[in-house]
């Protein structure tokens, strides 16, 4: 049911564990494969391992910020690690990160030799890269992708960034250069917060924000790419449940990657996510997960295509004993009032904005067109 052909590889499911320190060496990759994921991506492998930055990861209830997550194992060591990673089978995608095409070609060819099943070019990390990340320049991404594609026989996926004005242009460059797929999105440049007693930002420099915070950005990026470029997409950003994964697939993703959730909740979360998707597919009598790909795109319209529904929309008055008053406070048009056990909506004042239907904890309010 969840079997997916992705990058020309047969995956037992479309859930991939993303690049990160949870996949930092052979042993951890093997553990990730054992979690049941369809594939795993190595922590990004670089030309020359840099000094450690400590501390480098922070989190709160909505996600995480990191300021450097690259492999601390040199390419020479990955020959051994790749062997360990693949010793019980499984699909391993090697993530490589560098500043010039020749470096990327070197790393990718080595990893091909060491047994990687695919390459992910990651030039979209927002840390230490200047205001414009490499992946915001379509021409550079084109050069890099083209040279790597020419050098290896493996499928090449390119990880894109939300830190660009036109992600569709970059995805087009990947396709033109012969890339097999794009993954979107990488962590987004941000600062998690500030300790106002000590005037200390959470981490000492700008970092990449991941998790819950970026899912809406990831969904929009995936939708944009799938509406404008004919290239397979791997959705990334804030996936912690089967529902989230399905959302990405409905926006056009062929597969998804999970990173921050694995970091914060462990590898067991992968089994949970897969279970939830299976359950959902069963309930909806779906033979194959591929059937839902792009389903929601039909309902994602451009501004011009949106129909102005009946000029005056109304919220129906409903009996309500919740006593939270969220709807009456939030109604900017003064249309909702409380009367004893009822919430009364004044249809002459209601502008049909829809906010009350989302803010009501009991989901009692509905727009009636």
């Amino acid at each position: 049911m969840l079997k997916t052909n992705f990058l020309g590889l047969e995956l037992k499911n479309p859930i991939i564990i993303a690049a990160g320190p949870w996949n930092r060496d052979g042993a951890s990759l093997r553990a990730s494969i054992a979690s049941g994921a369809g594939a795993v991506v190595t922590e990004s492998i670089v030309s020359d391992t840099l000094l450690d930055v400590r501390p480098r990861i922070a989190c709160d209830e909505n996600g995480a910020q990191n300021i450097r997550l690259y492999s601390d194992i040199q390419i020479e060591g990955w020959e051994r690690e790749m062997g360990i990673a693949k010793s019980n089978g499984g699909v391993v995608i090697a993530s490589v990160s560098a500043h010039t095409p020749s470096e990327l070609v070197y790393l990718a060819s080595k990893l091909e030799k060491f047994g990687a099943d695919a390459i992910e070019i990651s030039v979209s990390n927002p840390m230490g890269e200047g205001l414009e990340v490499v992946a915001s320049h379509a021409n550079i991404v084109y050069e890099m992708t083209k040279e790597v594609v020419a050098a290896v026989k493996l499928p090449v996926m390119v990880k894109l960034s939300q830190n660009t004005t036109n992600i569709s242009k970059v995805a087009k460059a990947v396709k033109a250069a012969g890339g097999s797929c794009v993954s979107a999105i990488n962590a987004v440049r941000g600062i998690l917060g500030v300790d106002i007693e000590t005037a200390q930002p959470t981490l000492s420099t700008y970092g990449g924000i991941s998790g819950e915070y970026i899912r809406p950005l990831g969904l929009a990026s995936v939708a944009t790419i799938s509406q404008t470029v004919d290239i397979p997409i791997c959705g990334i950003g804030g996936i912690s449940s089967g529902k989230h994964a399905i959302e990405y697939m409905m926006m056009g993703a062929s597969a998804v990657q999970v990173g921050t959730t694995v970091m914060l909740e462990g590898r067991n979360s992968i089994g949970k996510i897969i279970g939830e998707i299976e359950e959902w597919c069963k309930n909806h009598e779906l033979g194959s997960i591929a059937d839902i790909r792009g389903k929601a795109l039909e309902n994602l319209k451009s501004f011009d295509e949106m129909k102005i529904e009946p000029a005056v929309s109304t919220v129906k008055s409903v009996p309500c004993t919740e006593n939270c008053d969220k709807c009456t406070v939030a109604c900017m048009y003064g249309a909702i009032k409380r009367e004893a056990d009822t919430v009364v909506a004044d249809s002459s004042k209601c502008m049909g904005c829809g906010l009350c239907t989302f803010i009501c904890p009991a989901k009692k309010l509905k727009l009636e067109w």
Partner: protein
Amino acid sequence: MNIKQIAKAAGVSVATVSRVMNHPENVAPKTRDKILKIMEEEEYKPNWFAQGLNFNKTKTIGLVIPHMLNSMYMEIAKGVEDVAQQKGYITFMCNVEKDKEIEKNYIEQLLTRRVDGIILMFSSLDEKFIRSVEEQDVPVVLIGEDKRAKGFNTVKVDCRLGAEAIVSQLVDNGHDSIGILYGNDPQQESLDMLEGYKNILKMSGIKILDEYIKPVENTIEGGYLGAKKMMAETPPRAIFTTSDEIAYGAMDAIKDSGLKVPDDIAVAGFGNARMSNLVEPKLTTVELPFHKMGVYGARLLFDLIEADGRDEENEDKKQSDPRQIILQTKLRIRKSCGHKERIGEMF
């Protein structure tokens, strides 16, 4: 104890012990551990010379360095050695003092010592000579641009682009008289940087003046003397130097002349040597990935050495073409040239 005795003690053949030393991955873990344990107990040291005879490998490489006192060359050498060490190789380091004859002589010496490969750092030798080394079946890798020697495995950095970036930065900071002190080594890179300097001045409509272009020794002293000469008449508002060492000397000369960096004269270097973050004011410079240059030099060399013994059956044709690794520079904006625009460095 010799290899035969180890084999006897472990109850295996000499070939198996040899495999443990050379291709341990091909030996059953249990046998391997047993043999390794005996070797450790007996403090067995393999006879490297004999091994060299057997496998036609001495497990040594040669590294030819232009000038040992310059920290940039030593940082590159560290990169080479880090990889060599991991591969179980010894590195012979030869300091040639930027002298072509010494360089040739050292290479002859390395060849008679049967090194498995040679890395030439910013070599001054011509293509013909380097080719003659390769013809003796000793692979060669070049670190640094050399327009006279083409078609070799090379690691290089586009220094012209780096110089253009830093000179643009000086222009953007409002400096309209900018001098350059360019070193005599690395030769090609320094000339490329001079070209980059001229390009930006031309593009920015700044007149190129001979008195602001001074060739100097790539040393602190060279920088000191060059800056003194440049300041003799009308000092420029900013000085770009093709190495950080030259910049240290220039900063010293500026201070000795009773002027201030960056208030009177801004200084920008090239390289980002370790000291550049410690001198006062901290030096604005262009980072050269020294360590990475060494690491890639060694990687290319070991790829050649390892491919050498293998049959050509499954080797891609691509592999036998000379490979070029081109690395990138990065601006490091610090206080020596004022630093309102730190955006490039900050994020």
